[in-house]
């Protein structure tokens, strides 16, 4: 019940296309859903996050869509660029209890072809 399942494992997209990465969770107590971007040899960097009181959040070319009833959330990267090539992780946490500890998906390696 603590798992966050992420798909696909890898994704190849043409420059200018839309990249879509999906995550699903079971624990309805989760109330914070961030996405992280990680380049080789670097630490994960917080990209965008959403809480379940909204269904969508957009920051530039990055959008999180959240479906509370389906217990799913997804990251959309519009107009994908070669510089977006990285590994993306979704995560989830809840307030209280374990002090906001994040449960991570296993990651999606995105390659954007020029």
């Amino acid at each position: 019940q603590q798992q966050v399942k992420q798909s696909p494992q890898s994704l190849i997209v043409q420059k200018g296309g839309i990249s879509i990465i999906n995550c699903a969770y079971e624990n309805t107590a989760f109330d914070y859903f961030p996405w992280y971007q990680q380049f080789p040899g670097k630490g994960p960097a917080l990209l965008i996050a959403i809480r379940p009181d909204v269904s969508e959040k957009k920051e530039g070319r990055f959008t999180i869509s959240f479906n509370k009833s389906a217990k799913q959330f997804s990251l959309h990267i519009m107009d994908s660029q070669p510089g977006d090539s990285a590994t993306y992780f979704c995560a989830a946490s809840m307030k209280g209890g374990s002090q906001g500890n994040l449960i991570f998906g296993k990651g999606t390696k995105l390659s954007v072809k020029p």
Partner: protein
Amino acid sequence: DAGITQSPRHKVTETGTPVTLRCHQTENHRYMYWYRQDPGHGLRLIHYSYGVKDTDKGEVSDGYSVSRSKTEDFLLTLESATSSQTSVYFCAIMGLANEQFFGPGTRLTVL
């Protein structure tokens, strides 16, 4: 980078030796975390701290211990390193809005 540094950045050691990794933050955050990252497993929480001398176990704590004697430093110790502990270790802090920011990582190889 939220003022987080990790040391060393790379280490090669032998099975059975003790190893200590250090995480240092400059912004006085209360919560600090240690994760390990392995191919196919994503990031998994080892231990976390919610204040000086206050720590608790995460998902994969066996074989690891931590200490936090000062707000700014969170140490991860492998008492007797094993090859299964070869990994990349990341420290993180929790910001004011409950978001987590990660350090640059330490690549540890246990031969």
